[in-house]
């Protein structure tokens, strides 16, 4: 689809949904729900909370849809609500360190990456788990803003300009947060892979 026509189509959908068209609202949900889910997952690191956040975000959007300015970018608004809801969840949980695999079974083990190719290799499974656990540990060292910028850029491929729009901060700030996030991650992972240690020179 042409990039120029896409916002117009979306605006039309938004207007219809604001006038009570349930199909239009469902189309909007279908288009964005996975991104909201993954963004929430990147923040909280488990399936159950990510699902709860996704549902809550959509309900919130539904209730506040009449306040949304149809000329603004829907995705930015939606992802801003997602980030705020995710931060709230983290705050409520006191950023308790969780096993990121605790809730995986509820999705089904067959969906897990190590079950596809590495099913018969227990060593590789535990290695993968260990690496993922280190990654989660590293992400937990970041501040909410650093984490927001990092996961949006690294895992969701958002351009820095869009991240600045979503978080309502300047591009310069986004770059600083990203730099600090990468430095912290590098430092944290250096505990496991000494070769990654940051060069402070």
């Amino acid at each position, binding site marked *: 689809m042409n990039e120029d026509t896409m916002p117009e189509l979306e605006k039309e959908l938004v207007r219809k949904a604001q006038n009570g068209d349930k199909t239009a609202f469902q189309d909007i949900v279908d288009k964005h729900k996975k991104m909201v889910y993954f963004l929430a997952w990147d923040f909280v690191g488990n399936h159950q909370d990510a699902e709860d956040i996704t549902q809550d975000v959509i309900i919130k959007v539904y209730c506040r849809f*009449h306040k949304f300015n149809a000329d603004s970018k829907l995705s930015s608004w939606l992802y801003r609500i997602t980030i705020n809801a995710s931060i709230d969840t983290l705050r409520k949980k006191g950023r308790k360190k969780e096993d990121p695999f605790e809730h995986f079974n509820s999705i089904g083990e067959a969906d897990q990456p190590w079950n596809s190719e590495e099913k018969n290799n227990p060593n590789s499974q535990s290695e993968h788990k260990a*690496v993922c656990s280190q990654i989660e540990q590293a992400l937990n060292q970041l501040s909410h803003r650093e984490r927001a910028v990092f996961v949006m850029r*690294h895992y969701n491929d958002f351009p820095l300009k869009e991240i600045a729009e979503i978080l309502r901060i300047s591009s310069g700030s986004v770059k600083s947060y990203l730099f600090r996030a990468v430095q912290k991650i590098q430092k944290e992972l250096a505990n496991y892979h000494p070769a990654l*240690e940051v060069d402070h020179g």
Partner: protein
Amino acid sequence: MAECSKIKKLFPLAVYNEISPEEKQKIEKHLASCSRCEEEYKRVKHTLKIMDKRERKDPGPEYWDEFNRKLNFRLQKNSAESQLTGMPISRKGRGWRMFWQTATGAALVILGIFLGKLIWVAPDIGPESTLASSPALHASLSSKSIQDKFEKMHIVLMSIMNFNPEKEDIYALNLIEQQRLFKELAIQTSEIRQSPLASIDKRVYELASDLELILRQMANVENPQNPQNIIMIQSALTQKDILFRLRLFNIRYQREAVPDHTNPVI
């Protein structure tokens, strides 16, 4: 050194390809002459490559179907509750006025329920109501028979609570027919509310009162086959914790073997 520090700040941006051609050229030029920065750049790239191992997979179409089902149920519930409180969802710019309207509405409803509880004795549901207020009948209610009646209500209400308007056929519930049963049950709760057991056990009195109100609403609701009405009833039952309290009553009276106050065993 100052140059190194400036260049290092560009490394993450370079990995994500968020730099201008001029900046790119600047980095390349610097790395060609600074082995420490070259090493550091490699480490940043390697770190971010490790971060890629954190995979997250799409839970699959079945999960999303179930997700949509849950979501639609919540959205319907939300709409039903908004209608119940008289709060429109998609009107523009009514913030405070809407808040005060809702608050006033809620206050009036609470006042209505309070006054209704004080002065309302089983009106409006036909000839049985005179029978219901007969003191002789109430006196004959033993805790065992109250237990049986509550048990029956529990089963009926469970069928309503477990009904999923999204997935199941609303006509299967046959609510028009069931309204007669709701009337009967409302009369029975009225009897329980006025029974000697309720007069000494506040919890029985409150449970019977709440149940009576809900059952009367169920018995008198217009267009019972409308799924939104089911959602409203489910929401009222949940809000008042009716099923839990019914279970609690049965457990209490079964386990503690409370002596039968109305028909004592000699």
